[in-house]
């Protein structure tokens, strides 16, 4: 419907009110740039009412749904730069979307949609970041089946075995 809107020109509360007046079926999405990378929040509307929220931090591969996502969507509108898309869906598509994403369903209280100033907070991103346990370099190399790269060349391995007092050639001649 409307895409690539500068989020600075879009007021969250006015947008929700306008979509309500038009009994809008569909969703809006806001994409912003956090410290770690791109983030995206989505709010789904059924007959003009916000009914579900999603928020994803792509850098951390962390997604929030429902109320936690709603808070983050609101916060995203206070970020410095962002783009907003508003896209219409059929009533059936909205129902299907909700059926497959039950955990994302949440209807904000009327007071949560009252216009007010919302200061931007980096705490949300910090929380998302801290909730992800990063893999070590070795774990990642193993994950991508690249552990071999870090392995010492065969010559060096034999050498270190010999230094340890072992006999590196013994297995080759072992009968057992």
């Amino acid at each position: 419907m409307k895409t690539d809107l500068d989020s600075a020109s879009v007021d969250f509360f006015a947008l929700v009110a306008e979509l309500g007046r038009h009994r809008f079926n569909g969703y809006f999405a806001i994409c912003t740039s956090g410290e770690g990378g791109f983030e995206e929040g989505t709010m789904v509307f059924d007959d003009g009412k916000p009914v579900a929220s999603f928020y994803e931090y792509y850098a951390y591969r962390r997604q929030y749904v429902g109320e936690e996502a709603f808070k983050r969507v609101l916060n995203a509108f206070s970020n410095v730069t962002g783009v907003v898309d508003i896209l219409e869906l059929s009533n059936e598509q909205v129902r299907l979307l909700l059926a497959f994403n039950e955990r994302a369903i949440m209807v904000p209280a009327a007071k949560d949609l009252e216009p007010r100033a919302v200061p931007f907070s980096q705490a949300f991103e910090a929380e998302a970041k801290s909730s992800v346990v990063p893999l070590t370099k070795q774990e990642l190399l193993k994950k991508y089946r690249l552990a071999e790269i870090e392995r010492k060349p065969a010559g060096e391995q034999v050498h270190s075995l010999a230094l340890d007092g072992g006999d590196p050639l013994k297995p080759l001649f072992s009968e057992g």
Partner: protein
Amino acid sequence: MVLGKSVGGFQLRSIAIASGKGGVGKTSITVNLGLALAALGKRVVAVDGDVSMANLGLTLGIDRAPISIQNVLSGEVGVGEAVYEGPGGLRYVPASLSDKSHADGRKLKAAVAELEQSADFILVDNPSGLGIDSDSALKSCKEVLLVCTPEPASLADCLKVKKAADRAGVKTVGVVCNMSTGDKSEISPADLETVFEARVLAVVPFDAGVRRASARQVPVFISDPRAPFSTAMLVLAGALSGERLPPQRLQQGLLAGLMGFFKRLLHRS
């Protein structure tokens, strides 16, 4: 750490653009990053360090050059004679499309050092692989910028280049994650940083415009300066040069354009 000669408080930088794997966008990044740095007011020379498979000139739309890096490496001329004025204030040293007879790659380091007298940035487009040519190109610079696509094969090859750079004392300045579609199957920038033990300076979206520009032999930074790829190059140039990008431009579409592009790739194409 001193990386080069200082002119007016600015550190001269010679950066090898390397990846190990072919086809990941080294040449496109060399040329367009060079143009982006030039747009930020830097004096830039892009050098085709791939004497066997010269591509840099083609990317700029130049099919022949009377004097090339091969002439420099064979000792026939000084590197100053092989520098050409390119578009957008970018200067470049092309490689010849003909064979590399008598070219001694070991002389590249001295050539790059000579160029440092007249440039803020020297970007050397490295050959793929880890052969003699790529080794010479890598060692000709003080720093290396690793270009990696977010998949295991590219990561593996790039990691080998980083190890070679570490052994040679060439500092890894950072990583460019190129051709990203934002798909969840891709290796994340955070994982790349962990594996490379270096910062990802730019996540560059896959942009079909780069391929089109390559076919037309006009750098995308010139043909479409607002393209997502061009935007990413400007962000990368800002990160490397320390230059602040104009806030107005950031607000009015630079980052927003990049975000919009990723957003479409991710969900709503």
